[in-house]
C-alpha cells in the first residue's frame, strides 16, 4: 500500500479501510497544515461536487473549505428541498448526472447504504459525508486523528464514549476504527435505554476489542485517557417525555474533570447542547474545536490522495 493506492478510490465506509490506509491518510493530513499556510494549489483545476441531500452545514463547509485550501473549486447542492430527490429522481440517476460536472463527489444522504450505491454507479470517486444512521467515515477519521494527535498513540489507552450510544453513529464508527489498534479499552457510558446496539457489540467482540458498559460518568472519569461526548438527539426519541428523562443525565463539567488522571482530552462531534458545560471550554481538556480543524485536514488529505495532488 502506498499513497498511489488511493488514486480514484471511493471512501464509503471505515470498514473498507485497513490500518495501513489509516496511517497513509494521517501522514497526509499532517502535511496539509503546510498547504493551508502556503500558497500551493495541488488540486488546481479540480472540481468537488458537494451533494448534500440531508442538511449538515458543518460537514459541507468542512469539505468545501478543504477543497478550497487545496486550490480546487466546489459546486454544491446545499438545500435538500431543492434537490432532485424531492422531485422524484433516483440517487443513481442523480449520480450519473452530477459525475459529468466534477472530479469527485462528497455525498450526504439520509438512507443507509446510499454512498455505497452511489460509488457503484459513479465514474468519479465518492466521499461519504454521512449515509443514514451508521456510516460517516470522515467523522470517524477526524475523531481518530484527533485522539492520535492528543495521545500520541491510542494503543493501550482507555477511552470513554458517553451519551447516546444507541443512535450515535459517530460512536459506532469510532469504536470500529479503534478496533484496528491494539489493546484499546472502551468504556461505554450511557443510560440503559441508549446502550450500544447488540450488533455493534458483537462486531467489537469479533474484532477483539475490550469494552465495558457503565451508567455512571463520574465513576469512569478517573479511569480513562480520553472522553468522547455525544449529544442526545431529541429526534431519535418517539416520545418527548422519554427524551426529557435522559437529556441531563450525562453532563461533563470542569469540576467532574478534576477527578481525571490529568489533562485528558475531551472530544465531541458537535454541535453540543448542554452535555459539556461551558466552563470546560477554556481548560486543557477541550479539544472539540481543534477537532473541527482536524476535520478540514483529514478531508484535505482524502481529497489530495484520491485526486493525486502533489505534496512536497
Amino acid at each position: 500500500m502506498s499513497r498511489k493506492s488511493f488514486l480514484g478510490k471511493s471512501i464509503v465506509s471505515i470498514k473498507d479501510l485497513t490500518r495501513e490506509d489509516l496511517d497513509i491518510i494521517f501522514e497526509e493530513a499532517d502535511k496539509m497544515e503546510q498547504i493551508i499556510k502556503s500558497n500551493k494549489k495541488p488540486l488546481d483545476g479540480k472540481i468537488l461536487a458537494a451533494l448534500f441531500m440531508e442538511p449538515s452545514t458543518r460537514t459541507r463547509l468542512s469539505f468545501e473549505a478543504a477543497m478550497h485550501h487545496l486550490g480546487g473549486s466546489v459546486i454544491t447542492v446545499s438545500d435538500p428541498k431543492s434537490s432532485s430527490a424531492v422531485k422524484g429522481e433516483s440517487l443513481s440517476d442523480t449520480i450519473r448526472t452530477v459525475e459529468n460536472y466534477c472530479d469527485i463527489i462528497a455525498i450526504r444522504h439520509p438512507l443507509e447504504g446510499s454512498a455505497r450505491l452511489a460509488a457503484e454507479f459513479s465514474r468519479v470517486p465518492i466521499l461519504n459525508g454521512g449515509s443514514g444512521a451508521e456510516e460517516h467515515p470522515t467523522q470517524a477519521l477526524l475523531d481518530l486523528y484527533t485522539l492520535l494527535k492528543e495521545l500520541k498513540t491510542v494503543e493501550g489507552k482507555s477511552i470513554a464514549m458517553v451519551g447516546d450510544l444507541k443512535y450515535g453513529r459517530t460512536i459506532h464508527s469510532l469504536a470500529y476504527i479503534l478496533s484496528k489498534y491494539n489493546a484499546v479499552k472502551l468504556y461505554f457510558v450511557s443510560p440503559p435505554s441508549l446502550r450500544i446496539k447488540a450488533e455493534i457489540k458483537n462486531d467489537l467482540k469479533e474484532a477483539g476489542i475490550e469494552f465495558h458498559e457503565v451508567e455512571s460518568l463520574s465513576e469512569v472519569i478517573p479511569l480513562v485517557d480520553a472522553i468522547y461526548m455525544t449529544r442526545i438527539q431529541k429526534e431519535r426519541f418517539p416520545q418527548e417525555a422519554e427524551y426529557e428523562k435522559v437529556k441531563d443525565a450525562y453532563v461533563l463539567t470542569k469540576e467532574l474533570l478534576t477527578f481525571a488522571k490529568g489533562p485528558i482530552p475531551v472530544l465531541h462531534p458537535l454541535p453540543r447542547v448542554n452535555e459539556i458545560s461551558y466552563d470546560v471550554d477554556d481548560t486543557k481538556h477541550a479539544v472539540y474545536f481543534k477537532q473541527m480543524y482536524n476535520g478540514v485536514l483529514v478531508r484535505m488529505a482524502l481529497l489530495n490522495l484520491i485526486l493525486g495532488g502533489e505534496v512536497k
Partner: protein
Amino acid sequence: MAKKSNSSELKVSKIKEGTVIDHVDAGMALIVLEMLGITGREGTVATLSMNVVSKKTGRKDIVKIENRFLEYTEINQIALISPNATINEIKNFTVVKKFDVQLPEVIVGFPKCINPRCITNAREPQVQTYYVKSVDPLKIRCKYCNTNMDKNDVVKQLTKYSGITK
C-alpha cells in the same frame, strides 16, 4: 454432481418426472411449496411428508413435485431456509441428478432488506445483495446497510405466515 442413488432413496422418489427435495428442515415443507409458487390450484401434483424420522437430522420433511425442475435461484432460496436439503431430479423413475443445496457466499436479488431506511428499498435500479455470515443458523448481512437478517426474516417474506415459532 450426478451420483448413483441407492434403492432406499428410490423408494422416496417414486415419481416419473420431477423433483424430490429431501432433508428439508422439519416443518418447512409447506413454506418450500409456497416459495416455489405451488398452491395446488394450478394443478401441480405434489406429495409432502412432514416430520418423518431421519437418520441424519432426527426429523425431516420431504417434498415431491411432479413435472417440475428447479431453477438455480429457487435452489438458493431453499438453501436459505433449509440448508441441509438435497435435490433429486427424477427422469423416468430414476434419479438422474442429486445434489445438496448450497448457499453461495453472496446472495443477489433476494430477499428484501428488512431495514426500511436501506437504499435498496428506495426506487433504485440495483438489486439486493447480501453476504452470508452463517448458514446454520442463517445469518445474512445487507451489503448496503449492514443489517443482519435471520431465517425468520426470510421466511416472513416468502410466505403469508408471520414467522416460525420455536
